Each structure stands twice: as structure tokens, then as C-alpha cells.
């Protein structure tokens, strides 16, 4: 497993977002793709509501490898006092390790979160959601999920739902048992985002998105 950090550096002759060196061992093409994809899209991360927010973003590299980017909205400010700075820890996994990783992630959530997720997503709700989601995935259309954002802990319910979704047998069968579909558990814009992406309700309340509301 290869690892990488993309962070905002202030005390440097070349301040700003950059990979933490060394990045040797990574192909130039991988670095470019990771650079482009690692951060969840959208603006507004500097809002008080998103302080300390976390997002898990997984996307495909070549040769069946998957990049897993764990993004955190830091409390840092730049020289002009601008907030909304993010930091991404990226791991590159092969397909088999990726499936195991996702399943193990589900097991790491606190019991109370899993319980809340179960309450939110009763079997009939889950079936109804799959009825909406599966046709979109079949048609290679983006699946935008929405839920009211009230902090990083409460958002874990959405993370659990997405992890269940991408590891679900139905979806994986649909995808030909290849790597689970790329996803982003929290973004502030659906454009340029993963095939499965979750947005806070306020960001999904636009005419041109048909978001599926998570109850």
C-alpha cells in the first residue's frame, strides 16, 4: 500500500496546497490524477458548520488500483485569514485490498452510529433507495444523495449508508463484482464528483440536481 499526504503549507517558500515530499514511488500520471481527485469538490468549507468535517473519497487509478482519500477540514487559516483549508491522507490499494478495506471500515464505526444508521435505514427504506439508485447506476448516471448536515459525528450515518451501498451484493453484482463504485461521502458540489456522492441538503437544493434524500 502506497501512502501520500496532500496538505496546505504556509511556512514555505512556495506556500499553498502541495504533496508532502517525498512522492517518489508514485508515477507522474498517478500523482496528477490524485492531485485532481483527492479533494471533495465545492466551496463553503470555510463555514462554521464544516469545521472539522470529514470526507472519504475513493476513485480509480489505472491497473485496477484504487485511491482512498480521507479528507479533513482543518482549523487552519492562511496568511490572509482564509479558512476552509483541507488535508487529505491518501492510500493506494489494489482491488482485493480495497474491498476488504471498505468492509473493515464499516466495522470501525461506533455501535451507536451503526444503531442510528439502522434506525434511519429500515429495510423498507433501504429497498426504496435501491429502487432509485440501481437504475441510475445501471445507466451510468451519477447518484447524488442528500441529508441535512449537522456536524461530522451525525454525518457518519451517511458514511455508513454509502459504505453499505458500495459493498452491497446487489450493487456489486450489477458492477460485475469488480471494484466497488467510486464514491464521496461528503462534497459541497456534485459537479466533477464521484458516481456516488453525498451532499448536505442545502447544497443539493438546486434545480439541476435530482438528489435522493436520505431520511
Amino acid at each position, binding site marked *: 500500500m502506497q501512502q501520500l499526504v496532500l496538505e496546505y503549507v504556509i511556512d514555505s517558500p512556495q506556500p499553498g496546497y502541495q504533496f508532502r515530499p517525498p512522492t517518489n514511488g508514485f508515477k507522474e500520471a498517478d500523482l496528477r490524477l490524485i492531485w485532481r481527485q483527492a479533494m471533495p469538490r465545492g466551496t463553503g468549507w470555510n463555514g462554521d458548520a464544516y469545521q472539522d468535517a470529514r470526507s472519504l473519497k475513493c476513485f480509480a487509478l489505472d491497473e485496477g488500483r484504487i485511491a482512498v482519500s480521507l479528507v479533513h477540514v482543518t482549523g487552519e487559516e492562511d496568511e490572509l485569514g*482564509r479558512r476552509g483549508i483541507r488535508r487529505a491522507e491518501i492510500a493506494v490499494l489494489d482491488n482485493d485490498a480495497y474491498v476488504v478495506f471498505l468492509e473493515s471500515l464499516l466495522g470501525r464505526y461506533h455501535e451507536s452510529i451503526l444503531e442510528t444508521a439502522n434506525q434511519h435505514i429500515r429495510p423498507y427504506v433501504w429497498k426504496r433507495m435501491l429502487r432509485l439508485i440501481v437504475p441510475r447506476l445501471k445507466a451510468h448516471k451519477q447518484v447524488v444523495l442528500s441529508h441535512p448536515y449537522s456536524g461530522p459525528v451525525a454525518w457518519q450515518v451517511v458514511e455508513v449508508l454509502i459504505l453499505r451501498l458500495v459493498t452491497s451484493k446487489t450493487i456489486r453484482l450489477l458492477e460485475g463484482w469488480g471494484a466497488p463504485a467510486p464514491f464521496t461521502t461528503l462534497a459541497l458540489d456534485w459537479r466533477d464528483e464521484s458516481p456516488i456522492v453525498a451532499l448536505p441538503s442545502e447544497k443539493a437544493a438546486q434545480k439541476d440536481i435530482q438528489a435522493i434524500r436520505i431520511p
Partner: protein
Amino acid sequence: MNDSSRTASNILASVLRTLAAISRQVADRFDTVVDFAYVRVLGVPFIVLGYRQTGKTTLINWLKRDKEFLAGFEPEPTAAGGESVPAFTTRLSADGSGMKLKPRRDVGGEYAMWETDWVELFQQTKPRGILFLIDHQNAYQHKDALNFVLQMLDDEESARKHLEMVMILVNKSDLWADEQSLDDLLDNFRNETRRLKSQAERLGYHHEIRQTSLVTEEGVREAMTAFFDAIRPRSQGLPESSDPPPEVKAGANGHKR
């Protein structure tokens, strides 16, 4: 030359004049159609570049919101990969009519973004215009960034083929205009402006340098009206009030059309 050959040559000249007039009319109509397609349907492609913290995101938001620009707008550092910006319509055309603009992405300005996000944006957008922002601080970094863009213009022949104008906005004039003139500030950029001028002549695009403040909005509307009029396929002609102020450096190529 006898009478008959004189008559023949007169007729020929008349036919040629008529043909020329017809072809001018056809070209004119074609320009109008292309202009309509860009301004009303596709969006006029342009990009915004510049070193970090010069106001690129604020400028794009100013363009998007126009009169409704929020004084309390708080930008955040643009992350790696930039942010998608869908096409939007403004009233910044010289005749006041709606104009669809397509900046495509808002990209960050730090060094790490140049080779990746800037080049990719330039290649994908094939812009008709480039807005490049600098300010009164970090002169070395602004010079590096401008030199990078000029080199990119030289290297990326296919991406620059529709380029009509490069406009440099010396932004944040509210912070420096009381202390120094635009000429004084541009003294630091002598080599770069010389290079810009000579490249503009060589590659056939127009260039201008204007001072702006996105905080007070001073000079912004005039600069943007002039820029978008210059890069749309058919100029609408600038109103009197949009003439550049005396300190503005007009490009050697002047305004096109």
C-alpha cells in the same frame, strides 16, 4: 487600350467589387452568427489565472453575481484540482445585453497548480481570453507565474488558437494606489510586460494592463466590459464611459476591429 477592352476591364472591376462586397456581407453575417452562438448559447470561453491570493475566486464570483456581489463574500483557498464553474450570463457586454460566459474552472494559484491545473484548464478551455491577476505583493512570484503563462502560450499552440486577448489586472488598488502609481508598480515587471508585448505581436493577440480593486469595485466593470467585448467574436463597440482611464496601459495591438 481600345474602348472595348476598357469596357471589359470596367465590367470586370465592377464584378470584382460586387463579389468583394458580397463576400464582406457573408463574412459579416457569419461573424454575427458565430457571435450569437458564443454569447447566447455556448458561452464565451475564458480563463482566470494568477498567483495565489490575488483575487481569482473573488473575480469569478463578482462576474457571476454582478450587481448582487456580496461585500461579505469570504473566499477560501482553492483546493488542488480547482472548482468547476458552470457557464453563466452577465450584463457586462458593451451594449448592455446578456452575455453567456464560460470560465469552466476556478483554479488555485500556488506553484503546484501551474503545471497541473493551469495547463489542463488552458488545454480544455481553448480560451478566447485570459485574465491574469497580480497585486502589489510577492513580485517575484507574480513574475514567475506570468512567465509560466507566457511560456504556456508559446508551447500550447492548439490551445491558444482562439486567443484574442490577455488582460493583466493589477488588483487590490485600494491597498496600493495611494502609495504608488500603476507605472511605479509595473516597473517591477518591465521584462515580463516587454515579453508580453512582443509575444502578443508575434502570436496575434491583444493585451492590456488595468488597475482594479475587487473590494471597492474600482475599475472592475470597465475592465471586464472591455475584456469581454474584445474576446467575443463580434465587438459591440465600447461606450464612451468605458474608455480606459489615463493610467491604463493599452496593448501595442490596440483594440481589435
